[in-house]
């Protein structure tokens, strides 16, 4: 409140410390005023309830749209997947199948004389894996040239052959 220009005495000098209402008192007075001026205010007033219903409906629509969009994109990407990726997937699937039977073939004859040769094959596979990993990361970053994809397929083929040799060797020895 702006003080009038006619004041002769400093209010701080006149009023005592307890003349000023503490924060809690002011809040209590305000609550009482509110109680009188805004009585029986429901938890959800009519505009609030309307907003709530609209919000729920909008959320449901967004959810449905998102679900539809996701499946549409998934279908398109499955159909239009490049040939390179399909080859890649096919090779990886075959390799996984070979690797699944590999431990039994490799572990069966740990003390055989052919163990050194087997170890050399495993070392070969580790090197091929490292090369595949490097090429795949290149493709993921920037390199999508056909030469790189061709090189990757060669490495997959090589790995498959080595795996097949290990399995055959294991079967012969057992």
């Amino acid at each position: 409140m702006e003080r009038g220009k006619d004041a002769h005495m400093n209010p701080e000098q006149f009023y005592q410390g307890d003349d000023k209402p503490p924060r809690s008192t002011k809040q209590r007075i305000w609550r009482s005023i509110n109680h009188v001026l805004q009585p029986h205010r429901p938890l959800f007033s009519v505009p609030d309830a309307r907003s709530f219903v609209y919000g729920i409906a909008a959320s449901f629509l967004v959810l449905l749209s998102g679900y539809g969009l996701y499946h549409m994109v998934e279908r398109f990407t499955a159909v239009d997947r490049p040939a390179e990726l399909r080859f890649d997937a096919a090779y990886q699937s075959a390799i996984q199948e070979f690797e699944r039977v590999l431990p039994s073939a490799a572990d069966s004859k740990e003390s055989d004389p052919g163990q050194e040769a087997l170890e050399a094959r495993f070392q070969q596979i580790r090197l091929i894996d490292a090369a595949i990993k490097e090429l795949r990361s290149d493709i993921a970053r920037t390199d999508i040239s056909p030469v790189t994809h061709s090189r990757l397929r060669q490495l997959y083929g090589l790995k498959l052959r080595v795996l097949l040799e290990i399995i055959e060797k294991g079967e012969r020895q057992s």
Partner: protein
Amino acid sequence: MTDESFLISRIREGDYAAFRILYEHHVDPLYRFLKQFSRDRHQVEDWVQRSFIKAYESLDRFAGRSRFSTWLFAIGLNEMRSDRRKTQTVFLEEAALGQSVTEDPHEHFAWDELMRGWLDQLDDIRRSVFILHEVEGFSHAEIAQMLQIGESASRTILSRTRQWLKVKWNEERTHT
């Protein structure tokens, strides 16, 4: 348009938050002023509460020609006096007579704690005029509007209250 006029126009348009701002702005001066008329904290809170409720409910009648604080204090004084009228009779011969008294601008004296006690001996009108003018700084025109007395009556009351306080003060000094 001042900030306060803007707030008042917002309240009239239904902006309740603007009323909260106005409340925060005026609650301290009104409370401390009304507290000079009662030692009962709850009664003072009740006066303040009723003043703001009445101000809100009759805001359409506030023409804006005076300050909002003048209008609010007038409501507060009415609330306080209507309660106190039930317990005491206030008779003001000076106010009724409306005698004009020339103020002496140099008629000042040191304020101290004793005077506060002497003010308590005065009736509501005298005490109101003194505090509203000397402490809160309202003009006689504003005080006249608040108390619904003539402007000259306000001047007379203030002058006589000062004289009375001065006499008390001089008596006190001679005793000590």
